[in-house]
């Protein structure tokens, strides 16, 4: 039963009869895929544009409006072997993309001005056969290029410095802006006074270097956002909305409004929050509360996005966040936690709080010193400004973004997406990790326990049959059998199972009672409350599969690796005591708490925080969202609820827990390099400042010192790239 898919929410009308849609595509990685997709889609009549973006893994499509249904593109891509889904840029990514373009434009302007001013400066520096009038002419030309260019390209720095100053703060952009403005101002005054030296080149070059660093940083962040956006799109969260009393249409969640009624079939994950108005079923709320036992649902039961419907069909009325529900509680806790989040001061800003006063004091002392020694006002001011120019924090401004870019790239390769810019610094200082159990330490999906006890051919058949079912338990059987070819003509009985015929023999897969295997199930000794049973019947032969949630394959090794790094490990779960203690025991974790509410989780985090620990929270459920915000730094698996993923500082991909350790290792290394870079910048200043104080700085020395120190810092930052493959101990 495939309801009509309605993608009209994502279609943009371009005017002149053309329509546009963006699709996120999974698995596009090479030029071959790119050509294959573009040709495959262009071959559809009426398509006017099909262009793959290999960086973002997306396809932009344009076609003549009319008979063509956008769902056809998704089907065509599926035929070509790619999973695709319409995609809508969310606010954060649009903003980052705009920012990225603006930075690149600034960089272009600054680079153009730098090259041309340098071309004018080099003859002045070499000074061969240059008449004073010619020198003045070159200085004026430099001013003509550098002043407008700096006014444009300096915007990112000036704006950020102004924002910081207005809130009575100092960030790295404050000394940068002061340095650039004073250097340009003094150069203009000197040019008017027919002086030897002007610093247009140094000021504009500084901007170009810093913009290069920031642009790279921004690009990396944009790439991470794009991947996160694709993952969200490819989850294809849809809901079956009732468009009339008994007619449904499959709509993307973004197009569902409060008050709509949606159908929730067995095996489907609810994509909206709402209240059940009709039907009876069992629901799995583990992604919401951590509780793995199924709960009964009937008229009036509240369901949340992420709830899995197990047995019956439900009609759900979509609600906007209602007061007094679990969701409202979590929302309130989350708001409090976000507000209370002790404003972490970035390393760069801490450095600039020390740096800016020191440099400005040095310049002032230089001014006073020269005045006391009897120099004129003009000379004293020029020397003082030269101190500011030579200390202008080029290396300092690059020290952290450069490392961050390389480290974020390495994390990206290791399957960790960065949500927040300063997460690397915070992650490096973690000394305690608190894990949620359900979906974090355990895999988000179910797996078959007793594969070995079932004959291979039976497992393969059951797997093929299971492909026709939507039920999560059936999905586990299909995965265990690695089944790929579904059996034809299979009928699904909602809430019971599937049945069909292979070579004339009837096959059934589903509830033990559905397969007449009730006795077998009762006699089965495995009465673990975590285990669900699914029966398979071929003719008269009956088999039982036991299905349960497993720990992530490398959970134990990851816990050991964390301990080895001197990091304490703890479990904080909303699940029952029996389930949590079993998991804790098999992982060798003695510090665990079960049945914890979202508020208790936050309270526990506060308690640990007061004892001076820096805690990382790793969790996936809706109930974890407030504690993810309250922790020093937080991480979520990609299977987490939407709210948790956007709250967490980092998101890791895949079924393994190893990215947690890799991320800690990489960030520790990155923090070390950031500190090293800051020291390199300090050493450079210690060497250069005395030269400036005694008044020996020429524009040539300023330019050479600036590019030299920037290069050094950039090269050091490249070491953040892991030389060997990231942490793998098995």
């Amino acid at each position, binding site marked *: 039963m495939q309801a009509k898919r309605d993608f009209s929410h994502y279609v943009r009308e371009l005017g002149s009869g053309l329509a546009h849609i963006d699709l996120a595509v999974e698995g596009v990685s*090479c030029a071959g895929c790119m050509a294959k997709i573009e040709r495959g889609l262009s071959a559809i009549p009426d398509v006017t544009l099909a262009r793959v973006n*290999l*960086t973002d893994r997306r396809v932009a499509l344009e076609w003549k409006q009319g008979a063509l249904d956008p769902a056809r593109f998704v089907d065509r891509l599926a035929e070509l072997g790619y999973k695709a889904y319409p995609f809508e840029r969310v606010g954060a990514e649009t903003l980052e993309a705009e920012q990225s373009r603006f930075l690149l434009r600034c960089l*272009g*302007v600054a680079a*153009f001005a730098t090259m*041309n001013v340098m071309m004018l400066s080099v003859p002045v520096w070499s000074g061969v056969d240059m008449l004073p009038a*010619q020198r003045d002419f070159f200085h004026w*030309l430099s001013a003509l*290029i550098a002043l407008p260019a700096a006014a444009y390209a300096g915007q990112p720095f000036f704006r950020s410095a102004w924002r910081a100053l207005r809130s009575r703060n100092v960030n790295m952009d404050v000394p940068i802006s002061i340095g650039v403005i004073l250097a340009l101002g003094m150069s203009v005054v000197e040019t008017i006074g027919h002086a030897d030296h002007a610093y247009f080149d140094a000021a504009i070059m500084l901007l170009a270097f810093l913009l290069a660093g920031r642009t790279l940083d921004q690009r990396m962040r944009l790439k991470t956002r794009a991947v996160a956006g694709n993952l969200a799109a490819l989850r294809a969260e849809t809901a079956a909305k009732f468009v009339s009393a008994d007619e449904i249409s499959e709509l993307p969640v973004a197009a569902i409004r409060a008050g709509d009624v949606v159908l929730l079939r067995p095996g489907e994950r609810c994509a909206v929050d709402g209240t059940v108005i009709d039907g009876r079923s069992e629901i799995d709320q583990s992604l919401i509360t951590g509780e793995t036992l199924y709960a009964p649902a009937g008229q009036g039961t509240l369901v949340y996005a992420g709830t899995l419907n197990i047995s019956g069909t439900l009609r759900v009325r979509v609600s906007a966040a209602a007061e007094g529900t679990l969701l409202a509680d979590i929302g309130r806790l989350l708001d409090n936690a976000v507000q209370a989040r002790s404003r972490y001061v970035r390393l760069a800003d801490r450095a600039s709080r020390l740096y800016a006063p020191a440099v400005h004091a040095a310049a002032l002392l230089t001014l006073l010193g020269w005045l006391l020694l009897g120099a004129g006002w003009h000379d004293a001011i020029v020397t003082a400004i030269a101190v500011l120019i030579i200390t202008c924090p080029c290396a300092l401004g690059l020290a952290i973004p450069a490392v961050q870019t390389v480290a974020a790239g390495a994390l990206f390769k290791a399957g960790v997406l960065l949500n927040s810019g300063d997460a690397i610094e915070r992650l490096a200082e973690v000394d305690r990790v608190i894990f949620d159990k359900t979906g974090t330490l355990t895999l988000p999906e179910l797996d078959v326990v007793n594969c070995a006890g079932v004959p291979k051919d039976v497992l393969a058949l059951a797997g093929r049959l299971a492909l026709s079912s939507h039920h999560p338990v059936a999905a586990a059987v299909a995965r265990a059998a690695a089944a790929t070819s579904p059996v034809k003509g299979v009928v699904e009985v909602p809430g019971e199972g599937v049945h069909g015929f292979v070579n004339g023999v009837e096959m059934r897969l589903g509830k033990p009672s559905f397969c007449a295997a009730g006795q077998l199930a009762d006699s089965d000794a495995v009465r673990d409350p975590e285990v669900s049973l699914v029966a398979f019947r071929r003719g008269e032969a009956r088999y039982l599969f036991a299905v349960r949630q497993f720990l992530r394959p490398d959970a134990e090794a990851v816990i050991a690796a964390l301990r080895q790094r001197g990091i304490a490990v703890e479990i904080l779960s909303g699940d029952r005591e029996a389930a949590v203690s079993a998991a804790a025991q098999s992982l060798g974790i003695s510090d665990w708490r079960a049945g914890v509410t979202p508020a208790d989780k936050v309270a526990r985090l506060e308690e640990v925080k007061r004892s001076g620990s820096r805690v990382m929270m790793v969790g996936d459920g809706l109930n974890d969202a407030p504690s993810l915000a309250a922790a020093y730094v937080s991480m979520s698996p990609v299977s987490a609820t939407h709210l948790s993923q956007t709250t967490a500082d980092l998101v890791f991909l895949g079924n393994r827990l190893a990215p947690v350790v890799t991320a800690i290792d990489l960030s520790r290394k990155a923090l070390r390099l950031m500190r090293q870079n800051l020291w390199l910048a300090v050493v450079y200043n210690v060497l250069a400042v005395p030269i400036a104080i005694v008044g020996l700085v020429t524009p040539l020395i300023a330019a050479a010192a600036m590019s030299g120190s920037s290069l050094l810092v950039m090269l050091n930052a490249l070491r953040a790239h892991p030389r060997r493959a990231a942490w793998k101990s098995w």
Partner: protein
Amino acid sequence: MEVLVILVPLALALGLVGLLGFLWSLRSGQYEDLEGAAWRAIADDEPAREQRPAPYGP
């Protein structure tokens, strides 16, 4: 040194052309997909579309 009167404006004009070229390429979205662009350079040309009249026969 009179040559400067020609050379300096010429150099600046060339630089400006470069800058305008860069801004144009930025506006037309050429920096949106750096990875794809690298591969497109070596990809085969698309086969000719069928709209062209067949070279032989009726």
